[in-house]
């Protein structure tokens, strides 16, 4: 049974504090998961904050067929993948970005960190979205195959196939580097 059921029910009735408790329970996991996709904590923080706002807004849509955490993680995965896509698109707007920074960017840190020198991360980024999600949840978040199936909205055997294919691909791209 879902350990969060009670809080979820309260949150569905609009109880902000109950949702706040859920948010505190999962804030570390959500931030870490967003980081695993984006490899940058500034963006991960933005994504994670949006995830909780979105989740609270849409908690009425959560049908309680899976655990709350799986539902929340699904939102996180989608938001992280979206953020990554717009990050790629953003490169095309470099000129606009410069204007933005000249106009007073609040943070002094570089907004997007490019070229992270990590062979494993690079290899992971070559996987399909589903394969990468399966690996990240299984290995970096210690989720069960069942939970990953809930996050990806697919069967357990599909998750096993994703994991296996992913590891084959990782083997190939890591070997190329050597």
């Amino acid at each position, binding site marked *: 049974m879902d350990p969060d059921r*009670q*809080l979820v*029910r*309260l949150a569905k009735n609009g*109880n*902000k*504090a*109950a*949702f*706040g*408790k859920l*948010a*505190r329970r999962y*804030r570390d996991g959500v*931030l*870490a998961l967003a*980081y*695993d996709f984006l490899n940058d*904590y*500034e963006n*991960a*923080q*933005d994504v*994670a*904050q*949006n995830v*909780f*706002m979105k989740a*609270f807004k849409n908690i009425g849509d959560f049908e309680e067929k899976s655990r709350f955490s799986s539902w929340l993680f699904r939102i996180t995965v989608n938001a992280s993948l979206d*953020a990554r*896509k*717009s990050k790629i*698109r*953003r490169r095309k*707007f470099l000129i*606009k970005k410069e*204007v*933005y920074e000249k*106009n*007073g*960017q*609040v943070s002094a840190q570089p907004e997007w960190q490019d070229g992270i020198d990590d062979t*494993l991360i690079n290899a992971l980024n070559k996987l399909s979205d589903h394969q990468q999600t399966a*690996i990240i949840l*299984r*290995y*970096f978040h210690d989720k*069960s*195959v069942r939970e990953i199936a809930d996050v990806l909205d697919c069967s357990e*055997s599909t998750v*096993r*196939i994703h*994991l*296996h294919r992913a*590891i084959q691909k*990782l*083997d190939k791209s*890591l070997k190329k580097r050597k």
Partner: protein
Amino acid sequence: MKSCSEFEQLFEGYFRSDLSPAEELVLLTHLQSCVSCNKKIEKFYSIHSVLMKHKRPAAPPDRVESYYKQVDLSFGRETISHKFLLFFNRFAGKRSPVYRIAQFASLVLIGVIVGWIVFAQVEPKVVFQNNDPYQMSQPISSVDIDYIYYYLQASEMVLLEIQNSTDQSDFYLNRELAQKLLIKTFRVSEIALQLNNLRMINFLNRMELLLHEASNLNEEEIDESLDTIKMVIEEADLLREVKNLQTLMKRTKDQFGT
């Protein structure tokens, strides 16, 4: 009989001790006779152990702090009355007389305690009221002032960006900028509240609504939502207001000598 590729899909579970005894037995028996699967499981194990060893770098402490703060700000901290509500809820749905009595007793208890909390803690709060809403009251620190100042500049840029956007290609940039600025809006609102600057608070409320709308733009109804947002910017004359606030802020900033 399973094929080799079906056995391969058991490797992951095998190293995780996640297989049923039957599955494990079948796999081990197969491995005794299949050279190709033996090679594959070795390869598999090398990647598996690389992944198991992977550690993500820790988040910078100041980032974690600001992140926690934002989440708390969005949903509020846990309160005592909330704890009682949870406790009470545990009995909801159970219909036996014992639970009924417990329910009633806890209700009375909650009544007494909540009453005490409410009445014992009500003290008139003295808030410094600024008579002229167009005048800044004393700022908290120069860092806060800088933050507001930069925020206003970024707002202007985002507002212009939205107003000048015409097609789909601007869509992602706008949404992303709006999302980023929305998060910063919460922090600025906090400072504005402390400053008791009504004009700023007014502006920030409008920005929050607008940015929220812009953050949730979706591709299908983009044209329509963009038009609405543009209309709001125009009607509330937000671009002029942001300019005015910048001038006011600049003055405070100079007074503060930053």
